[in-house]
């Protein structure tokens, strides 16, 4: 998504937040319960035990990757007792007079221990933290109707190719489980309709007289009846958000936030073996 993200840690959860403080583009929230990621988790701060800071994603990924490779070596050697320990520290880097904050990754291997310091920003102030918390609360407004898209690969393929045809995409979501995408320019109208998807939340039964109408007419009728909602998004943003399917989510849902504030795409990942 981007180079830098905010890592927001609370007593219960760890959030990776991208672009939440700007009003434009894709906002991305990845949340993990502490039990999902950590065996042991201790946090304390003067700000109700919440800590937030900015971190370079590629550096973070590099540190985690190397930790994983060392840990898997230990696993092979038969001892899994020593795991990856992550600490928030302040250190004095060489040639500096001021201590800087780091996220330290400590991996105890079979024969060696590796410590990696990933530089992070200064922890966000109470006011900034509050701003982030508010944005997070807003981003987590669950849309009244969610539809599940079974074949993300197909959808991404289609949207990727759509990028050549136009810039603005109208996304409509129907209470009876339809997802309708359409680009309209002066020269072309191009759309796709996926029907009979699984619905979570507010549902409705599709009127039988609508069945044989064209996708556009059906969309207009459903919106006027209040059975559907639509938003306009940038095709590029939409396509980018679908890239998340590369991380192989277990399921994906699409919904429109109340008042058509945004298109919400939810990717769900289950802990392996818990489905």
């Amino acid at each position: 998504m981007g180079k830098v993200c905010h890592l927001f840690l609370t007593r219960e959860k760890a959030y990776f937040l991208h672009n939440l403080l700007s009003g434009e583009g894709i906002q991305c929230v990845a949340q993990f319960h502490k039990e999902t990621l950590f065996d042991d988790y201790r946090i304390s701060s003067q700000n109700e035990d919440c800590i937030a800071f900015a971190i370079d994603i590629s550096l973070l990924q590099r540190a985690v990757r190397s930790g994983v490779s060392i840990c898997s070596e230990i696993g092979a050697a038969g001892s899994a007792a020593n795991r990856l320990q992550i600490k928030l520290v302040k250190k004095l880097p060489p040639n500096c007079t001021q201590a800087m904050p780091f996220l330290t990754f400590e991996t105890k291997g079979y024969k060696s221990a590796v410590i990696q310091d990933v530089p992070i920003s200064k922890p966000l102030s109470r006011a900034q933290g509050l701003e982030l918390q508010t944005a997070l609360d807003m981003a987590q407004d669950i849309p009244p109707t969610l539809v599940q898209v079974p074949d993300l690969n197909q959808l991404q393929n289609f949207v990727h190719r759509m990028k050549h045809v136009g810039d603005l995409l109208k996304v409509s979501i129907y209470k009876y489980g339809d997802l309708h995408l359409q680009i309209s320019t002066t020269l072309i109208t191009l759309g796709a309709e996926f029907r009979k998807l699984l619905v979570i939340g507010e549902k409705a039964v599709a009127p039988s007289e609508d069945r044989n109408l064209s996708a556009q007419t059906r969309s207009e009728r459903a919106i006027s009846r209040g059975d559907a909602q639509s938003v306009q998004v940038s095709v590029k943003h939409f396509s980018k958000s679908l890239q998340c399917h590369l991380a192989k989510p277990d399921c994906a849902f699409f919904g429109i936030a109340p008042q058509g504030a945004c298109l919400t795409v939810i990717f769900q990942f289950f802990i392996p073996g818990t489905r």
Partner: protein
Amino acid sequence: MSSSAIDAESPDLVCQLDNVQGLVDALSAVRWKRHQDAVIELSEHGIILIVEETGCLQAKVYLQRELFVRYEYSAQGRPRFGVSLGLFADCLNTFSAPGHSSLIEIRYPGPDMQLLVKSVDSPDACIYAEVRTRIPDMISWDYNFEPAGSTPLTFTVKSAALKEAIDDLEWPGSSIQIKLQPVPPSVSFKGEGHGDLQIDFMYYVNTDLLIAFHCDREVSYRYKYKFLRATTSNLPGCVIKDNRGSKLIIGRGGMLKVQHLVSVARTSNQHPHTDSAGYQQPSRIAYIEFFVKPEEDEDTIN
């Protein structure tokens, strides 16, 4: 435009195609720049798409009715309309998904004279498009390709080799001389510009490269490099992969005709080791033709 066009109930054409990618490949072969206007002509024999540039270069894509699973033509005369080639090809491309052949239906005209395309293979997922058409405003340049003399001056070369040769001629650039001579039977491409480069195809030396050759007298013409390049610049990968040949004919006045074959066969039916056009039904081939006018100051050796 035929009178039936007004009646949406009986469109001029309804056809269905099961290999969208083949169609996209065929159309892409004649895309040599970003914005190109194309004229589409419908007939009982199939669909012809024509693009041209400054009266010096014309390309045609022949989509015979045999390429289609279903082809219902009911117009009087031959309806013609203009579309943006790039938009049409990009639009069709969204219908094609890798590893999965989709059935599409093309219909003309729609209620507002649009070209309508929709996928028809799944009841629960549908892709549709309406492409705005316009009255074709370009007056087709009268290329009138005629054979030069009693025996045709023609050669067939591996498409990949032709593309490579033309790509290599980029650095001398500007104008390229094509020379055919009967003794020794050979074709040479010669570029003179920033430097000189000559590429010779000898008929008997390498029959793998030059597949056929007919020439009874020495002949040479010069062509603008950019037009020559347009004939192979967007040659679809499947043409190279299928190891096809391209036929070049020099007509009266030095008019050059370049013909490529693009497969529109269903991928599932395709034999993995197809090594020539002969293995496939000829009816599943789209013909691509380019007509290139020679440069004015040609020096013909007759």
